[in-house]
């Protein structure tokens, strides 16, 4: 079945998504369909094509082939409508480093068309949530990597998007903020926000995600809930997501390697 024919029931829908860089095929004709309110985990080893896929889904990278619909809008035909409904936390954090944390969040809110007072209120709330209140007047260029990430995360949330793309959101963030963010993400999904999430920390994915897709060498090798993935990997009933993942991506388990260690 072509999922594009039944597009309305999905918040994220990609069909035949392909990206080539010269001779290298980074993403090889993948299909994705994620429903509203779903916490969707997107896993894969380094270089598997996760970030490339997210960039294409957000309109930051033009696919070589394939079509994408986000929140009911076609990314080619209505890119601004798509951007109105998404929040993105990219893997590489690039912010306006010569703005302060507070200035950047207000700027982001205003660019999303929020009224000034509302922008102020949300900025304060998010700075508090991210434990950045004390540092709000410092330029972002002077922030640590974790603080930059939290600022970018706050900016992704400030307009209350329908779909959140989070690429390795917890990397470099302290445990207190991780817990706060996790709670926020749960609240968001409870209220119907769709979250598209990548992480290398399998425990986090296992705990948060309702459905998972595993990408390897540009192709989806498995997709579904934990039970479906276990079945696909022919893994035991008590096997963790990590075991399943390693099995599905054919990770090397050569005990003889590095014998000199």
């Amino acid at each position: 079945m072509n999922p594009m024919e039944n597009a309305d029931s999905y918040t994220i829908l990609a069909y035949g998504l392909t990206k080539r860089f010269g001779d290298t095929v980074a993403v090889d004709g993948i299909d994705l369909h994620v429903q509203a309110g779903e916490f969707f985990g997107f896993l894969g080893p380094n270089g598997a094509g996760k970030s490339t896929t997210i960039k294409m889904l957000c309109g930051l990278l033009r696919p070589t082939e394939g079509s994408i619909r986000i929140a009911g809008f076609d990314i080619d035909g209505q890119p601004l409508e798509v951007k109105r409904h998404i929040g993105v936390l990219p893997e590489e954090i690039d912010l306006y480093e010569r703005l302060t944390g507070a200035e950047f969040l207000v700027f982001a809110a205003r660019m999303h068309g929020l009224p000034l007072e509302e922008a102020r209120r949300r900025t304060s709330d998010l700075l508090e949530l991210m434990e950045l209140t004390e540092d709000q007047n410092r330029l972002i260029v002077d922030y640590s990597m974790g603080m930059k990430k939290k600022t970018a995360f706050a900016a992704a949330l400030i307009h209350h998007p329908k779909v959140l793309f989070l690429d390795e959101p917890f990397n470099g963030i302290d445990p207190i903020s991780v817990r706060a963010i996790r709670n926020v993400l749960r609240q968001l999904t409870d209220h119907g926000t769709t979250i598209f999430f990548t992480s290398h920390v399998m425990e986090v994915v296992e705990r948060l995600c309702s459905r998972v897709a595993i990408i390897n060498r540009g192709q989806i090798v498995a997709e579904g809930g934990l039970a479906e993935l276990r079945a696909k990997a022919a893994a035991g009933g008590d096997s963790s997501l990590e075991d399943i993942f390693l099995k599905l991506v054919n990770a090397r388990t050569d005990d003889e390697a590095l014998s000199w260690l």
Partner: protein
Amino acid sequence: MAVAATRIARYLGLLLWLKALLMWRTYRRNLSAAVGAILALLFLVPLSMMIAVGCFLGFRFLEPPMAAHLLRAVLLAAYLLWLLSPLFGYELTEEYDISKLFLYPISPRLITVGALLGSVLDLGVLLLLPSLLVILIVFSGSIAAFPVVLAALALFLLHTIALSQSLSLASAGILRSRRARDIMVVLIPLLMTLLYLGSQILPYRLQRVNWSVVLDSRAWNLINYLPSGLAARAVSGARQGDMAQSVSFLLMLAGITVATLYLSSWLVQLVYAGEVVSAPLRRRTASKAAASPRSRPAGAEAALTRSAWSALRLPPVIEAVIDKEFKYLLRDPYFKASLMMTIYMLAVIIILLVNPRTSRPEAPRDLTQMMLWGASWMLLFAEAQLAFNIFGIEGAAATVLFLFPSSRRYIVIGKNVALFVALSGVNLVFAFVLTALGKRLQLLPELLLWFVLATVMLISCGNLISVWFPVRIVMRGWAVRRHSATRGLVHGFVHMGVSCIAALLSLPVLAAVVLPTYWLNPIWFALTIPLALAYLCVAYLASLHLTAKALPLREADIANALRQER
């Protein structure tokens, strides 16, 4: 013992290899850096050889006392230049960051020695070698003198490099801080501008200086007790056969050199132990900020203080972009660096304007006026680098900008308004200084009018080239590096081509200002200016339409180009 010596030699070899490899890779990975280095070598090697030849002639044919003074001056110049070099070429020291070596089982002393040996590969040392060789040849008149001169020069070189290294380490915290780099962006071009002005003015003044008084002065004598002077005294003494005096100065120099080596080694050990050698200029502490009676309001409040633009009731997106652009204008070093270019240019034009030949009352009236109009073209050409690359300053953050669902037309308008206001401020100062110095203040209104109109045309053309040929801006130390998204040469030609087109399109505007000023009755302004404004309106709206239409299609490519690694 032999094993330890072999191990030390192996480590030193490895450190030298690392240094050479990093230098080589820097040039291999960055074609423009390699071309720049080759061009610099083509200029600097002959210059170094010419200085060496000049030194040879001076040392050989001047009277011995004057030759000795020349030697002191040459070594002093090299010494001061070397000590200032960390300030100017800090990025070089960052490439070979010795703190990265602390992970490995190498002692800080060995790291120091490796760094000093590695300095032999630095361009500064290589360029200094011809002059040092000349000193060695000219001043080693006898077999006894040769080892003394050689030792004095070797100690001088070792001390200078070690001291430079120490200064570099001691100031690392400051030099690497963001604020220091921001200050350097302004300070160094300003120093260069002053140097240029000095080089234009000083030669006339220096001719009137009584040099024998200077050379006999107590100050000059005291200056020459610096290590460079000690080396010079040791060398001169050896030439004159006064070996006792020569050796005594040599010993003093050796003592200072050993102390400098210890200082350098001690600083490396401090860095090794994680001590802060020189505290970076960090943020004001929260308590200090809170204690200040004029402390700013909380961030969100401050960030939302209504700007002057609010009164105009502009759409929120335009207002937000203008606010952001102005904050960047004030805070981003790129704009400051670009502004310093215009100040440098202004200095050059000032020299031309105050030149006795052009500033004399009897000088042709047209010449000064032509210079004023010509200077306005030069300034506009310099400003084109900002107008022709409106997304370049976003850098990797362009991704953030393009993720917003805002109207692309509004984003472009916001950027244009901010740039127009900023450039107009610069143009106002420029026009005032030019007309005042050229004693043509009556031309100020016409010149300002031309600047305003031409800036609109520049921005109109700039919008289009910005979308199709974005250039990544990288600040390296105090200098700006531009990495074109397309091939460098192609981009250079395109930029030049669009500059020419902008100049051609500006000709009707120029005519609208110049014709009533010089050839028609000024009443004609009533017709030419509205016509020029209408023409510019059409040009700007067409540019805005095309830019806003092309932008959504180009965003992915622009974002990719602006974040490309080199």
